[in-house]
């Protein structure tokens, strides 16, 4: 087995165990949250990082040139953000909601062919790396906001039903969930904006047209418009709490469609071939 395949399998295994442990954690009758899932995710992340670096060195370009690499890099970005939040805010049970999302991307990645291919002249531009990293980090922030949104909805049910026990004690407070959810969207939105702008500049240097109404372009514009709505609903109309949480989950569903659906169903220049 090739070394980078082995590294990928190791990362996948660690993420898998972390996700399972995270879900088990939800049903355990203990009052404190175990830190094991965080460490498992960190171990997986280290193997994953080496896998990405190995592919980068072997291929000579940032490994996001087919669906295997794209879904894998997407999970890497989410785990990175997750670890940063885990370290900084120490939110109880965050891993139980984020690691399953990571696992969805990792498992999707594992079903696509893994060979490292030569890239077309179009991708041989430094804008490629900039564009992809901005877009993926933006998507990762939206993924985290979705996870936090789900946590909010669960915690809100406990608060509403006044069952102040079990998960209620382990989940973060509604206020901090709300604040971090908003904070993540205010990170994701500028990152998505920068990703679109870098795409615009790159398209203009490669084709002489900064906007071609290609399906991926349009769907990222749609995502941008929807998150612009989310922000205005929150800041001008005052949609907070439950509504904001639901919006961040729907927003991420749109991101997922733009990521997988557009690539697999609709044709265009962003489709790998």
């Amino acid at each position, binding site marked *: 087995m090739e070394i980078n395949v082995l590294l990928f399998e190791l990362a996948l295994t660690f993420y898998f165990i972390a996700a399972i442990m995270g879900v088990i954690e939800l049903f355990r009758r203990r009052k404190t949250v175990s830190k094991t899932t965080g460490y498992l995710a960190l171990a997986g992340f280290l193997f994953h990082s080496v896998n990405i670096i190995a592919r980068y060195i072997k291929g000579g370009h940032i490994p996001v040139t087919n669906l295997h690499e794209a879904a894998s890099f997407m999970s890497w970005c989410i785990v990175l953000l997750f670890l940063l939040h885990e370290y900084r805010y120490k939110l109880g049970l965050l891993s139980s909601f984020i690691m399953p999302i990571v696992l969805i991307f990792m498992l999707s990645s594992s079903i696509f062919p893994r060979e490292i291919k030569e890239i077309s*002249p179009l991708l*041989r531009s430094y804008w490629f790396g900039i564009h992809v990293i901005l877009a993926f980090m933006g998507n990762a922030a939206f993924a985290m906001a979705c996870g936090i949104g789900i946590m909010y909805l669960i915690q809100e049910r406990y608060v509403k039903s006044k069952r102040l026990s079990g998960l209620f004690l382990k989940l973060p407070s509604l206020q901090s969930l709300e604040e971090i959810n908003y904070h993540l969207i205010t990170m994701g*939105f*500028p990152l998505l904006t920068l990703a679109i702008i870098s795409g615009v500049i790159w398209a203009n240097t490669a084709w002489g*047209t*900064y906007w071609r109404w290609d399906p991926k372009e*349009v769907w990222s514009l749609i995502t941008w418009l929807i998150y612009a709505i989310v922000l205005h609903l929150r800041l001008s109309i005052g949609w907070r709490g439950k509504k904001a949480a639901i919006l961040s989950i729907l927003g991420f569903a749109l991101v997922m469609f733009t990521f997988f659906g557009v690539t697999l169903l609709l044709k265009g220049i962003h489709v790998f071939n």
Partner: protein
Amino acid sequence: MENKEQVNIFDGIWGFFASVKLAIVLLFLLAVTSIIGTVVPQESPKAIQFLGKIFGDNTAPAVYNAFLKLDFMDMYHSWWFVLLLVLFCVNLTVCSLEKIPRTWKLVKTPVKPMAKNVLETLPVKKEVTLKVSLDTARDEFLNAFRTSKYDVKEAVQEDGVQLYSEKGAYSRLGVYVVHLSILLIFVGAIIGARFGFDGSLNLPEGSSSDVVYSRTGEQVPLDFSIACNWYKTDYYKGADAPQEFSSELVILENGKEVLKKVIEVNNPLTYKGITFYQSSYGIVPDAVGIFVLKVSNDRGLEETLRLKQGESFEIPGQKIKGTIMDFSPALGRDPQSGALTTYSDSLINPAVSIRFDMEGSDGFTGWILKRYPETGIIKDAGLKVEFLDYWGVEYTGLQVSKDPGVIIIYIASIVMVLGLYAAFFLSHKKIWIRIAPVGKGSVKVNIGGSASKNRLALERQVEHMLSRATAAIEGRLKKN
């Protein structure tokens, strides 16, 4: 009366467009309708095929006609989509104009001392009692403010002093900067559509042109000429995957060369506002190519030759004659029989067959491959023949465009990023610190703060200032 009615109509329209709810509806409509163009092919022939597949041959023509009326095959330029965009722009402008005066007042109104009871209702609040004189406490809190880069004001009140300050007032305008950038994008797009053009030009190696062709095939004259010296495709080592497409272009003014540049896929040539992009390539039908060969040996001979098929060359001093016999644009081995075969019409793996005749021995014929220079080494004669190019049969496909709106789009992008930064990452923060003596040698400190966003960050900052001031006060007490 009439005048008043007109004013009312104006107010009504203004009120309609000043609504954030309208903005949300329009954003949503733009998002939803945009989907159409990603599903329905934006070209008639493809759309016909697509509709036929979905609706069947009987219903498809009716659906096609309906789609044609609604411009679904060119929806991003349709009247209704453009109308949505116009409404959106008006909404954005009116909404911003409506809100700017209020925001401007918030920005410009200086922060004032605050009554104690109000101070205690602020979103961020702290209270401590310190065993220190009023003056010392005042000095240290002033310091703490200044190290956090606040411009402090001071008010002496009957029961003590109040220090107060604000920062980042202008960040409140960030959102309008973002709105402005969106309007700028529309300005850039309109300028591009009005004053720019899109065209293409297929330029064979060694030829020049002073016109390009628009999308509809019309000639668009240039006020200079452009020539192509050569076009080439580079391949990854050992693979038929292209690594780079490049052409050497020359700009000519009145027949004189003024600019020469090798363009690549991500590296175009711009002259007088017109940009030439490497976009395709192909073979010129019936063109006669010239073989460019480089002959060299270990005795310092080096010569570049340009020959046509059937022509011969002699290598001086060696009495060897070479004749160009055959050419293959893509020479490969048939995987089954192992025989040599031409597997493509494109110049993927060009090879030239040369017969060498030497005095006193039988000649031999061999293929020399352009991508594999080692095939040109002739050991017996100490010679090396490199196949540099098969020149004159390919054309470079150029995308030609002029878009004076691009610079505005770029400026708008920068403005948008700055606006988003101010809107999301900066905050208008206000902090009040009230210091009042309580009993002998003690003061009570009440801190209150408010922020236009990110309350947590302000909370952290206030805590930081408080701990800095108390640490400094304790330090002073120890010294004394």
